């Protein structure tokens, strides 16, 4: 599968990924002598950067990080490429000094340590040749501060019995927002919903499948829901209650993409 990205530092490189779910500082986060990760919170401590595609949400910490990245690359211990959600100036400048390709605007939460990745910062893309991408929409319906979740039936293709929001596959080149509106009508019977916002795509990983989730927020005029065959149960919950439900992968992140992080 190939996803769009924003090229920050030009170049093209490939390698296996090492992915940190938390933001990263090149000062203290890595051994400048050999490029092995020191920071435990990354979950990849002990791994080496050399030749790998390093994915982390964003940079943090001292501006000296730029020089550390330069020194690592000079000794041949730097990463082959960097993938971020949002590249900060310290990483961007350091990677420029070092000549390491960087892209951002990628939801790195969908990348796994060990994935084969091709980063093309010239064209602005990230390719995962071993992963199959499926584009889906998720519609968050809101009514007086509560959002709708539904439990998936045994007849659906994936994630049976899990809690989800209204969702569906995008077919061909159709407009994701249009697909979201159609799914809401089919699965809830609700009419007169009002579009509020669209969030950046969330990458929800399920083994060799990547769901590229396009999140949308709609206000619903009522809470009278009529389910179809795809779901067996529904609830209107406060967004912060979501943590108590066994959901499809990354539903809380999809909700946060349109509502902001939980209070």
């Amino acid at each position, binding site marked *: 599968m190939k996803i769009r990205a924003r090229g*920050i530092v030009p170049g093209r490189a490939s390698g296996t990924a090492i992915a940190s779910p938390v933001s990263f500082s090149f000062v203290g986060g890595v051994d400048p002598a050999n490029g092995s990760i020191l920071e435990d919170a990354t979950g990849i401590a002990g791994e080496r950067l050399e030749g790998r595609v390093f994915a982390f949400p964003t940079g943090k910490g001292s501006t*000296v990080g730029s020089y550390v990245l330069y*020194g690592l690359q000079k000794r041949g211990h730097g990463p082959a490429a960097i993938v971020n959600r949002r590249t900060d100036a*310290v990483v961007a400048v350091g990677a*420029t*000094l070092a000549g390491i390709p960087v892209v951002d605007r990628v939801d790195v939460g969908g990348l796994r340590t060990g994935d084969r990745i091709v980063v093309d910062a010239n064209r602005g893309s990230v390719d995962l040749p071993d992963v199959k991408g499926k584009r889906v929409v998720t519609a968050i319906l809101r009514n007086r501060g509560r959002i709708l979740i539904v439990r998936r039936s045994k007849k659906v293709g994936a994630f049976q019995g899990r809690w989800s929001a209204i969702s569906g596959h995008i077919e061909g080149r159709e407009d994701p927002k249009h697909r979201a509106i159609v799914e809401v009508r089919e699965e809830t019977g609700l009419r007169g919903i009002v579009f509020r916002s669209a969030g950046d795509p969330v990458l929800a990983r399920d083994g060799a499948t990547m769901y590229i989730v396009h999140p949308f927020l709609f206000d619903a005029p009522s809470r009278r829901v009529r389910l179809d065959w795809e779901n067996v149960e529904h609830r209107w919950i406060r967004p912060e209650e979501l943590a108590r439900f066994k959901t499809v992968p990354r539903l809380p992140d999809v909700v946060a993409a349109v509502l902001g992080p939980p209070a």
Partner: protein
Amino acid sequence: MRLTRAQRHLLDEGTDAQRKAMEILLTVGRLADAPRLVPITSAHVSGASYKMIGDPGLEFLEDFARDARVSVPTTVNPLGTDLAQWRELGVPAAFAEKQGRIARAYETMGVRPTFSCTPYLVGVRPAFGEHAAWAESNAVVFANSVLGARTNREGGPAALAAAIVGATPEYGLHTDEGREPTVIVKVRARPRGIDYSLIGLVAGERVGDGLPYFRGFRGTEGDLKWLGAALASSGACGMFHLEGVTPEAREARVKGLKSITITPKDLIAAKRAHTDGTEADLIGLGSPQLSAEELQAIARLIDRKPPRIPVWVFTSRVVRDANPDAVGIIERRGGRVLADTCLEVTLLEHRFSTVATPSGKGAYYLPSLCKQKVIFDDVETLLERYA
């Protein structure tokens, strides 16, 4: 980003350093969605203290200095120690040696060895409306707010890249739009002494990366230096307006802006919040480095009340050399006048544990950068207390 033919030429056929400098500017411009590079009349680079940039920074600068040459007048931030007095300060020889190499690398690149955080006090004062590329947050705030020049808060390597190319990405504080205030800050106090630092610290905390429009007080250029330095420490601000004082305040759009108020109570609370020490073993004056007037005033104070604990006075080499009388008085009374370096980027942690200072910027950074406890008060009060 649109490039001129000359800029395109640097990128394609320049020296290694020129190409790298262009790449840095393109990266920074891409992050900020800047449409083009704007020519600058001066640059000021940060990242010169060995204590701050360590071996990784030294290595980069020495590599870069092989063929990097600046193309506009460029000054550089303070070092980690005074190049002439490091032995007397107890600085390890290895530290001083590496610090000297950093200084030489910058000089090789054609950077003026000012080693000062106050370029605006050592003869670099861009005119109203001129574009510049300055790192060092207090200098950025001063240039934008007091002089009406235009610079973003550059990082060290980006400012160096701009110095080599002679241009910087046009966004943020280079544009009219980016210089409009985002919040009104009413100050219900008649500030004197450290109150300017306190106003800066409180406002920076509340405004974050916004652009404050202050109202309700006045101040000299010297007062605004302390306010701006504190503002840029606790906040990510690169500029402020002060009604009736700063040159762009009159044209600023304030209609409909949110307004916050700073009261004397807020200032007292901030002073308390930045005081965690009980007994000081050093009085540190500077951060930013002192002007000639400030140095002379300190000399008069110290002459009347010689201190019983060490007093380190930080100024630029230019100001130190031009004021031998003030320096003489301070040193006869047991103080030290240090140049090339400044309070929180110098090596203190090997000798001291609690610093008394009237600098808001110093009070903000000393705990993290120098592992010091702080007593934050007016210089008169401190010299009285430790007489």
